[in-house]
């Protein structure tokens, strides 16, 4: 028994080390967002909220941030809602050309984004159509589709077919079966898929660079634009705010849920 515990604590410390490693650059960004100087290096020469103030008065970055949020959310919802049925088809059905189609649907990650970016524009130019938000959204859906597919598929394999068959034999329709048996079991993967899809869309630079019109530029595109002069620490401030929001929202939500549960 004693040996077992030490095994677990090894796993724990290993995980902790991986976390520290993974967060080192993030911590650097957060710290530098409080650096009063424009270029920071360590050790820092002071502490200030200067960049947060400037961020609030920068309509260009805030506008881009709004674009990123809208685009990311729509992408996550739409990509997941078309990826789940596709994953279902691959895992639950046998049909001709399955391997090929499965590979085809994960193709978007195999193609360098520069190529994809230009390719879509070549096609659009041939169609003689201007760019639009629809195009950007469709592009992002296709870009993030494989991630959702892979996550959902991997999970679906683990869900036993027998559960669904049992529901079906009890007279449920395929849709009812999906809704009341498959979907709940699948929901962690669906959530993970949406999270994936949102973040990839939120963080995508190369393809977005080509597809976004002038008025739909996202945060990463703006950052790329700053590379020539220097990236303003306002971007570090924005990243820090995002991180604080992502950590604190689930925490507060959890707190309120527990509180209401206790009261009722």
């Amino acid at each position, binding site marked *: 028994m004693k040996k077992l515990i030490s095994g677990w604590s090894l796993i724990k410390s290993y995980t902790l080390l991986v976390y520290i490693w993974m967060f080192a650059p993030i911590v650097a960004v957060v710290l530098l967002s409080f650096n009063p100087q424009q270029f920071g290096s360590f050790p820092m020469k002071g502490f200030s909220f200067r960049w947060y103030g400037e961020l609030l008065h920068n309509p260009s970055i805030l506008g881009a941030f709004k674009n990123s949020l809208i685009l990311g959310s729509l992408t996550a919802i739409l990509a997941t809602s078309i990826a789940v049925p596709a994953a279902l088809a691959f895992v639950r059905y046998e049909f001709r050309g399955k391997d090929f189609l499965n590979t085809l649907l994960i193709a978007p990650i195999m193609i360098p984004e520069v190529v994809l970016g230009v390719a879509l524009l070549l096609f659009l130019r041939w169609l003689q159509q201007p760019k639009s938000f629809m195009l950007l959204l469709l592009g992002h859906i296709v870009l993030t589709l494989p991630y959702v597919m892979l996550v959902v*598929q991997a999970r679906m394999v683990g869900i036993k077919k027998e559960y669904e068959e049992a529901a079906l034999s009890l007279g449920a329709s395929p849709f009812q079966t999906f809704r009341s048996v498959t979907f709940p079991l699948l929901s962690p993967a669906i959530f993970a898929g949406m999270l994936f899809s949102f973040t990839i869309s939120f963080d995508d630079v190369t393809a977005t660079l080509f597809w976004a019109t002038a008025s739909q530029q996202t945060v990463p595109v703006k950052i790329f634009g700053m590379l020539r002069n220097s990236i303003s620490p306002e971007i570090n401030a924005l990243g820090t705010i995002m991180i604080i929001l992502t950590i604190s929202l689930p925490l507060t939500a959890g707190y309120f849920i527990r509180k209401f549960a206790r009261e009722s």
Partner: protein
Amino acid sequence: MKQKTLRPWLLLSPSLTAVLLILVVPVCFVVVYSFWLRSPIGQDIPAFQFGNYGKFFADFFYPSLLIRTIRVALETVLLCLVMGYIPAYFFYKTESRFKPILMILVMLPFWISFIIRTLSWINILGDSGLINHVLLSIGLIDSPLSMLYNEGAVLMGLLQYLLPFMILNIYVSLDGIDKSLIEAAKNLGCTEWQAFKEITLPLSLPGVSAGCLLVFVLTCGTYLPPMILGGPGNDMIANLVFKRIITTLDWPFGCAISTILLALVGLIVFTYNKYMGINQVFKSLGG
């Protein structure tokens, strides 16, 4: 019966339509373009010739970039696996109240733009970066260690970008494992390690293989880590595509390189699928 054979197609149709429209057709344009000619002024000339491909294989320069790309991608996959499996297993096993938070933390790096994340390694690994600063001040070293602008730094950047993909993929398939199987095995006298080896590990393989594939192909297509953290001679094939298409505006040649890269990655994925691929794993589990 007919309805049954139609159903998978119905389920697939939205994704297939999107991929065909946004990806397959445009990529055909890339392939067509790779046979075109580039004029010195800039307007490309439609043609059908293999000059762009000839140029790629004319000497060892371009193929060697391709080989380097594959090597770096394999290294990245291996490192991601080594670094990612145990944390994924931890998430699966832990009963901590903070599990959802810990999970979200994995995705947190993505909130900070990839460019910024990559750039910020300079603040850590650089000559006046955090590590050197600490080592110098405790007197472990006399002069800064040179850690940036080599393949190691590129791998750091790649790992930082790709590790979350590996962890989440493995976790999702671990989480799908029926825990009663493990209980049963333990009741039959298996040790924790035996239960892991005989049940958990094999059942997590779909996630592992999905993660590996994902990391491999993503590495083949990224150009930012080599561009920012690499030194002279760490460029990968995607950097070349980027340069040809964007810097020199040589679209036909850029398209030819892309086609070659596409064919190569396609071949690898195909072989992978055939011998140890995801579908193979699906079948063994589904039966």
